[in-house]
């Protein structure tokens, strides 16, 4: 079995995880099951990143999404538990219009993708040392956006604490 065949097999594995997890996340009735399906989808996206030679992003995806955001979401589900019941209807009246709009938009994008003549090399450039390159870019070329992102995360953290605290702040 050649390496290309293995890559395609892995690609299909991750595709089933990603698409199945995403469909489960938007259709399952129990919010907790929906969050678990989202975990499968995000882990599949991390597998995609490994296939695309973006190892740093794969690690960041696992750490930030599966480790951080999902814990946050499950904690929020536990705090607001009354919507978890399976007998409560989870969709509003827009199911068929939403299906129509998103399906039509998907068809438009697939058509544009099909008509597009890609001019780049299908073999592609091989990023030899991904983590070094990403670190160099963040520290040399994109230093200012990196610092601004740090300030944004700091502000978001303080804002989240202030919004979610129990008693109103002292005047």
């Amino acid at each position, binding site marked *: 079995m050649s390496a290309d065949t293995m890559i395609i097999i892995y690609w299909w594995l991750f595709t089933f995880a990603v698409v199945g997890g995403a469909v489960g996340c*938007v259709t399952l009735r129990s919010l907790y099951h929906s969050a678990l399906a989202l975990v499968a989808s995000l882990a599949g996206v991390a597998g995609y990143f490994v296939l695309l030679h973006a190892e740093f992003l794969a690690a960041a995806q696992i750490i930030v*999404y599966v480790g951080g955001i999902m814990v946050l979401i499950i904690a929020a589900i536990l705090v607001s538990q009354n919507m978890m019941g399976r007998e409560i209807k989870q969709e509003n009246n827009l199911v068929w*219009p939403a299906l129509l709009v998103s399906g039509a938009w998907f068809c438009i994008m697939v058509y544009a993708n099909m008509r597009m003549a890609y001019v780049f090399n299908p073999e592609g450039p091989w990023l030899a040392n991904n983590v070094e390159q990403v670190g160099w870019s963040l520290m040399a070329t994109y230093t200012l956006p990196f610092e601004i992102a740090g300030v944004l995360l700091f502000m978001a953290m303080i804002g989240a604490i202030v919004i979610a605290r129990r008693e109103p702040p002292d005047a």
Partner: protein
Amino acid sequence: MLELNLMALLQDAQASMSMADVLAQFSGFFRTFFVEFGPRQFFTIGALLFCIGWYGVLVRRNAIAVLMATEIMLNGVNIIFVAFNRWWGLKITRAAFTAAEQVLSPVGQIFAIFIIIVAAAEAAVGLAIIIAIYRTRRTANLEDLNTMKW
């Protein structure tokens, strides 16, 4: 330096084609879709994730479920960014103290990293807002939060 050939990308779309040509292209696209590993596959999966997330944003009633659907949309965009960076890397000159070398720019991955950062901040603030609303209104249902609707 930058060798983006956007017009060559678009020249196929500008050529006039009959409906039969379009259908032949479509069948060829789907024949090769399942046995290839390339940017088209990742673009299609990214678009599919974006549309699934959009459906979830439009349809779900719980605010936390809407937030999860937003995460799906952001991940679809991330996949497309990283895939295009993989097959369409640009050469940049990286200059250290005395040496300079030509390397491939990971600019798509940098964009994906910033998307992940903003998604983390958005999830934290959004969940804090949902918890604050749940504490005062005892609901996380978006249809009950109608005090600012006309």
